[in-house]
């Protein structure tokens, strides 16, 4: 399962994403994508964010069972602790 969360992005980008994923709530997308499609789609999203921000969460075979990627100025920051991903709320 792949989840993409977008904030402050152009409507056209959200529309584009709904071709692959379900928009469960505004800016929250869920879908089942292959690793290749997911990476290409994420690249596409990152290019078209404008001033918005986004986070990608997908299942992997890591200890946590999932991985997170972010792009754009989000209100949270991704931190890595020796391979364990946690979220920081900046000062």
């Amino acid at each position, binding site marked *: 399962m792949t989840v993409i969360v977008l904030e402050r992005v152009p409507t056209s980008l959200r529309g584009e994403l709904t071709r692959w994923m379900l928009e469960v709530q505004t800016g929250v997308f869920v879908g089942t994508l292959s690793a290749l499609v997911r990476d290409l789609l994420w690249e596409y999203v990152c290019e078209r964010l404008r001033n918005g921000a986004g986070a990608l969460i997908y299942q992997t*075979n*890591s*200890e*946590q069972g999932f991985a997170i990627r972010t792009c754009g100025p989000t209100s949270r*920051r991704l*931190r890595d*602790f*020796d*391979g*364990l991903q*946690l*979220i*920081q*709320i*900046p*000062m």
Partner: protein
Amino acid sequence: MSGLNLRMLPKVRDSWSFLYVERCRIDQEDRAIALHDQSGTTPVPCASLNLLMLGPGTTITHAAVRSLAESGTTILWTGESGVRLYAQGLGETRSALRLLHQARLCSNPALRLNVVRRMYAVRFPEPLASDLTLRQIRGKEGIRVREAYARASRETGVTWQGRAYRRDDWRAADPVNRALSAANSCLYGICHAAILAAGYSPGLGFIHTGKLLSFVYDIADLYKADLTVPLAFQAARDNDDGLETRVRRLCRDMFKEQRLLARIVDDIDRVLDIGDLPPATELDEDAGALGALWDPDAGEIASGVNYADLPDDELDGAEP
């Protein structure tokens, strides 16, 4: 959450292996745990976490320790890079069943020898001949360890000049020895957390003896040759930058790949031949539940009862 049902917590097998932090303040935040440093606040899902390693420069509040203890996260205070252990917190069971079993095996030399033989037996692919003396087994084990180092050295091309480190000067050791120390320390932490989580004592060792962590060394030795030795050589083959961090990252992947957390409690139970355990006891559902009183005839009798209030004939009846 006070009065937390321990069954709500992920088992050792399902949790995240460890989190090592340094130079930050840890306190309770919105009923969870958060790390604070200059750059911000990082909440930690502590119920999912098996082990929290506190490195230098960490401060932790009383409330945070309480939350961590309630969620069964083992806390270890360690030196830089998680190497060296200073103190420990509490594990994930309130039942003393396993501890009593361990103490019984440990205090009877014949039973203890059986455990030692089982501990050695799991390290060799072929069964150990029953006529081998302990001394001979130790010799065989020495050869096995030497071969593990030689094999790892051959496979990675990292030269091996023996295990050497100076306790007073970490940087003086060669990279592979430093990688070994960092990986072993991570492994000790996981073993320590599993031992505490299952309700064993880290001090009642079988092969090792005399230290408060003897049993941790016993259990870690089951895995070293297969897990941390190859990993340390692999880490030392690449450049020296961020060696300790790289080792911990490799450790996490390797623990996951080898399903260490899923195996470790079973492995400990197996070498101690614990047999079938009763399912969760009342103590695991209610940490505040009363334990029992020992009785030479009945085994256990209820506590929290004032035996002075019982009629005299019942008191007399208890005498043989």
